[in-house]
C-alpha cells in the first residue's frame, strides 16, 4: 500500500477529486495549508504598511491506495492539477505499513 500526499493549487481541488473518483479512488482527506516553494509570495499593503507574505495558501490531499492503483493516482493528480506554471505543487508517495477500517476492523487493501 502507498500513502500519497499531494500539495496542489486550491482552485484545482474539484477537478482533481472528480478525476480521482473516476479512476476508482474511494476516499481522501483534504486540508487547507500554507507553504512556499519556488513560487514567489504576495505583497499586502495596509495603509502604507507593506507585508510580504511568502507563505501561500495551498490544498493538501492525502490518499491511501493499493500498490496497483498508486501509479495511476499519481499520474492523474499530476495531469489534472497542472497549470504548467510555478506553484502547481508536489506529489509525495510513502510506503504505508497498515490500514484498518475502524467500523469493521478489516485490515490491508480491503480497508481502503
Amino acid at each position, binding site marked *: 500500500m502507498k500513502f500519497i500526499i499531494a500539495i496542489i493549487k486550491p482552485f484545482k481541488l474539484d477537478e482533481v477529486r472528480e478525476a480521482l473518483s473516476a479512476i476508482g479512488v474511494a476516499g481522501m482527506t483534504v486540508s487547507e495549508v500554507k507553504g512556499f516553494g519556488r513560487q514567489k509570495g504576495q505583497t*499586502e*499593503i*495596509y*495603509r*502604507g*504598511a507593506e*507585508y510580504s*507574505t511568502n507563505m501561500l495558501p495551498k490544498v493538501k490531499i492525502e490518499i491511501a491506495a493499493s500498490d496497483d492503483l498508486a501509479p495511476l493516482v499519481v499520474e492523474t493528480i499530476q495531469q489534472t492539477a497542472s497549470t504548467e506554471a510555478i506553484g502547481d505543487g508536489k506529489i509525495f508517495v510513502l510506503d504505508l505499513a497498515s490500514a484498518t477500517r475502524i467500523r469493521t476492523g478489516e485490515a490491508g487493501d480491503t480497508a481502503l
Partner: protein
Amino acid sequence: MIRKVICGAGALGTSLMSATAAFAQEAAASVAAAAPAPEAAAAATSLIKAPSVEQMAGMVDKGDTAWMLMSSVLVLMMSIPALALFYGGLVRSKNMLSVLMQVFMIVSIAALVWVGWGYSLAFTSAGSIAPAFIGGLDKAFLAGVTSGTFAATFSNNVYLPEFVFVVFQMTFACITPALIVGAFAERVKFWPLMLFMVLWLTFAYFPIAHMVWYWAGPDFLPDAPTDYGYLWGMGALDFAGGTVVHINAGIAGLVGCLMIGKRIGFGKEATPPHSLTMTMIGASLLWVGWFGFNAGSNLEANGVTAVAFINTFVATAAAALSWSVVEQIHHKKPSMLGVATGAVAGLVAITPASGFATPMTSIYLGLLVSPLCYFFVSYVKNKLKYDDTLDVFGVHCIGGIVGAIATGVVADPALGGQGYFDSTQFPAGVGAYDMGAQVMTQIKAVLITLVWSGTVSAVLFFAIDKIFGLRPSEEAEREGLDITEHGERAYNS
C-alpha cells in the same frame, strides 16, 4: 453645535419671512401704501427676549424634538457597533474582543459620568470658579433637569426639552473617549484604561466642550454678553466637534501610544487586519451615524440641518475617492481599507465645517483631506516610528485639524458659506465676516485644544501607569488580550 450660531439663520429667516409675508398681505389689504419698516418691527417685537420657562414650553417644536432624539440614536450607533467594528476589524483576531469591549464599556461609563457631572461641567456656568473654562456643579446628577426644563438652540425663541439636549450631548461624550483606544490597541490593561477615561472626560473633554460649545443662548446672551466658553467667545467655529471630538481624542491617542510604547514585535512581525469585512461594516455605519452627529448638531430640523446633511454626504464621498486615487498612484491598487479610511477622514474633516460650507466647498475639503491623512499614516508614522495602531492621530487629529482650519475658509459668505451669525444682538443677525481673522481664530482654537488635551492626557497616563500599570505583561500581550484580559475568544470554530 457651533456657537457663533449661524445655524439658526436659515430657520429664523424662513419663519420670519412667512410670518411677515402673511402680515404684509393683511397690511396691504387693510392699509394701502403701508411702509415696509413696520413689518420688521412687528416681527421683532413678536420675539420674546429672555423667555420664562412657561414661555419656553410653547417654543418647543415636535419636529425638532423628534429629529434630535433620532440623531442621538444615530450617534450612539457610531460608537457601538460602528466604531467598535471599524477598529476591531483592524486588529489581530486575538485582540478583537478587547477592542469591542473597551469601546462598549467606555460608552457605558461615559454615559454615567455625563449624567453624574459631565453635563453640568460642560453646559452650565453658574457657580463655576472659572466660567470661561469649565462649568459649575449646579446640575450635577441632573439636579433640576425635568421634563419641564428647556435648552436653547441657535434660533431666537426655539427650544428643545432639556433632556433631549442632555441625551444628544451625552452621545458625543460617549464616542470621543472611545476614539482614543485605537491608538494603543492590542497593548493596554482594561480597568486602568477605564479609569483613565473617567479622568480624561473630566479634565479634558468637559472643559474643551464647555470652552467651545457653551453659551447662554440667543435669547439670553444679549443681556449676559460674557456668559460663554472661552473659545466660543473668541469666535471659534466648530459646528459638530472638530476640536472637541476629533482633535481632542486624536492628540490624546498620540500621547497614549507614545507613553504606553510600541507593541511587541512592532515593525518586525506582520500585524495585518484580521477582518476588513468588519472594518467596512463599521466605516459604513459610521457614515450613516454621522448624519446624526453633524446634521443633528444644528439642534433643529431646518434648512441648515439639510446643508450639514448634504455636506456630510459629499465630503465623505470625495475623500473616499481621493484616498483611492492616491493609492492607485502610489501602490497601483485601490484598497478596501483605503476607501474606508478615506471616508472616515472625510467625515472627520467636514465635521466642524458641516453647517458652514456649501456642498461644492465640502467636496474640495473632502478631496484635500485624504492625501494629507494618507501622508501621515503611510509616511510620517513610518519615519517617526510611533506605533499608533489604528491611526487615531493620523486620521482623527490630522483630519480634524484640516477641517477646523478649513472651516474658517469655507464658512466665508464670499464662497457661499453660511458666515457668522451674531447672537449678541436681539434678534440675532448676520455678522461681518473676515476670512483671514477667522482662520487665525481657528488655528488658535486648534492649538489650545492640542495643548490642553495633550497635557492632561500626558499627566493622566503617567499617573495611572505609575499607580496601576497600563501595560499588560509581555506574555499576556503575546497571548492576546481577549484571553488574558477577558477570558474569552472572538471566534470559536
